[in-house]
């Protein structure tokens, strides 16, 4: 039985509160495209992607229209390319990136993720080559996203890889300086990277996944904020959590429905729903605003970590009930440049990098889309990566770093990427040197999983 109130609530959530399915992502395994001849491998990659994902965009658009649910992004994730480089004779990884870019453009998706390597315990053939080519690969392509997993709870942290990544992030910014340093905005450094993540820039299709599958990433901070604004007056925090849970349930059911329909129509198995609150720079579609709606003057003030812990947990509890298979990053995202409330908090001085780091201990995902001064030394970026990875490793959760050194800019300046990547102020970072610590290299051993305190 349909209820008028329910129908109007759904319409309002979609038209006024920016409720949407943030991404439908097709995961495609490229393991069967491996070839000793790199040119031949690229040909196979192009053919497989353009065959498998041929109908992804039209089908997603058709379902979006029939159900009145906007599907903002259609994307592809592929097997970490380092695995294919491993078996090639003298490969140029940039050619692989260009192949992914061409295939993504041919099928009309807006990003392809998987220019990746998993090096949490060490480097195997192809890994170093891929990492070293990342700045060029990101500069010479438009739609390719890159991610590197440098640590895990079971393996510890590969500090040689951490030491490599600081200079790589800087270099990626330097060679795209005239394009608003867009390079590092497409590069994520992970600890405990999930293998079925549909969200960019960190999506890749793990080796344990099936040949092809559909993942869905839901969104909806605007809908959660609106529910709190309308109903949370006078509620205690237990009741606030319940309200968030109920709203998250509805948001996720929509994602589950859309994912099921897309996968049925394409004849591809349904992978997971990623239960995330993913903000956009649009006014009101902000995770920071949700926290402020709970009663904080400005995101970043004392109490922010506690409010975020409540939000993150309630989103998951509501979402798990609403979907068959849950995976990916699943949690509230706190990117700075993609969230109008975070941008405002960073600009007014309420939100610092140190506070963001604390917040990442209780939510998905990490120091994300943070704009650093252009002269930030590479070893400081490496050390920031190490700190984030340590939080992820010890707490058995995913953490990540996606920072953009704004070449030629300093604290208070603005860097604007446009579109979903947004814009933001350059944030100050502690400049005392971690150089000696980072240059030691080696591996931080995996932590104890008992005696937890």
């Amino acid at each position: 039985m349909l209820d008028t109130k329910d129908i109007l609530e759904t319409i309002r959530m979609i038209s006024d509160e920016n409720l949407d399915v943030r991404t439908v992502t097709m995961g495609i395994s490229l393991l069967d495209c491996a070839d000793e001849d790199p040119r031949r491998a690229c040909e196979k990659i192009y053919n497989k992607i353009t065959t498998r994902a041929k109908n992804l965009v039209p089908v997603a658009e058709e379902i979006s229209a029939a159900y009145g649910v906007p599907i903002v992004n259609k994307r592809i994730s592929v097997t970490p390319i380092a695995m294919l480089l491993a078996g090639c004779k003298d490969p140029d990884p940039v050619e692989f990136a260009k192949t992914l870019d061409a295939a993504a453009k041919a099928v009309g998706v807006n990003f392809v993720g998987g220019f990746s390597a998993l090096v949490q315990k060490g480097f195997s053939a192809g890994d170093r080559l891929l990492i070293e080519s990342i700045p060029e690969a990101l500069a010479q392509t438009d739609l390719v996203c890159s991610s590197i997993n440098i640590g895990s709870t079971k393996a510890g942290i590969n500090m040689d890889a951490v030491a490599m990544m600081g200079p790589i992030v800087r270099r990626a910014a330097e060679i795209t300086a005239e394009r608003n340093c867009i390079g590092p905005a497409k590069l994520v450094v992970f600890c405990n990277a999930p293998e079925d993540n549909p969200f960019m820039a960190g999506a890749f299709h793990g080796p344990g996944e099936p040949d092809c599958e559909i993942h869905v990433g839901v969104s909806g901070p605007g809908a959660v904020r609106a529910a709190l604004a309308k109903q949370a007056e006078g509620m205690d925090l237990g009741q606030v959590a319940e309200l968030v849970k109920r709203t998250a349930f509805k948001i996720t059911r929509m994602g589950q429905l859309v994912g099921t329909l897309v996968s049925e129509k394409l004849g591809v198995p349904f992978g997971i729903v990623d239960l995330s609150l993913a903000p956009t720079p649009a006014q009101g579609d902000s995770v920071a605003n949700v926290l402020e709606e709970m009663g904080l003057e400005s995101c970043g003030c004392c109490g922010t970590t506690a409010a975020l812990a409540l939000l993150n947990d309630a989103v998951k509890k509501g979402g798990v009930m609403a979907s068959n298979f849950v995976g990916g990053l699943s949690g509230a995202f706190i990117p700075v440049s993609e969230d109008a409330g975070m941008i405002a908090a960073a600009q007014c001085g309420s939100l610092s990098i140190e506070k963001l780091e604390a917040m990442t201990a209780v939510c998905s995902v990490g120091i994300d889309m943070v704009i650093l001064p252009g002269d930030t030394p590479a070893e400081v970026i490496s050390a920031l990566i190490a700190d984030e990875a340590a939080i992820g490793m010890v707490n058995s959760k995913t953490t990540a770093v996606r920072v953009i050194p704004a070449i030629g800019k300093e604290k208070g300046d603005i860097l604007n990427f446009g579109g979903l990547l947004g814009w933001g102020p350059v944030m100050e970072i502690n400049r005392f040197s971690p150089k000696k610590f980072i240059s030691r290299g080696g591996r931080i051993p995996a932590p104890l999983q008992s005696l937890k305190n």
Partner: protein
Amino acid sequence: MKAVITVVGKDTVGILAKVAGVCAAANVNVEEVTQSILAGTFAMIMVVEISRCNVSFDQLQQQLAAAGEEKGVDVKVTRQELYDAMHHI
């Protein structure tokens, strides 16, 4: 196959006739109509059967949206499963 047509906006003469006219021309059967005034806004909801619809879903959406525009109201048509999924366990 059922769909839900929602009409939201300022109440004027002939909205129901206009929307029902588009449905009739497209061979869409109107099964249920409810309307109410919520916080000063006119809201009408029609449950319709679209199995024998003689135009594509896309075209039906466009025709209804155009009819709504003429009357100054927002008309949307959505497959029913969305509401079932979001509001029922």
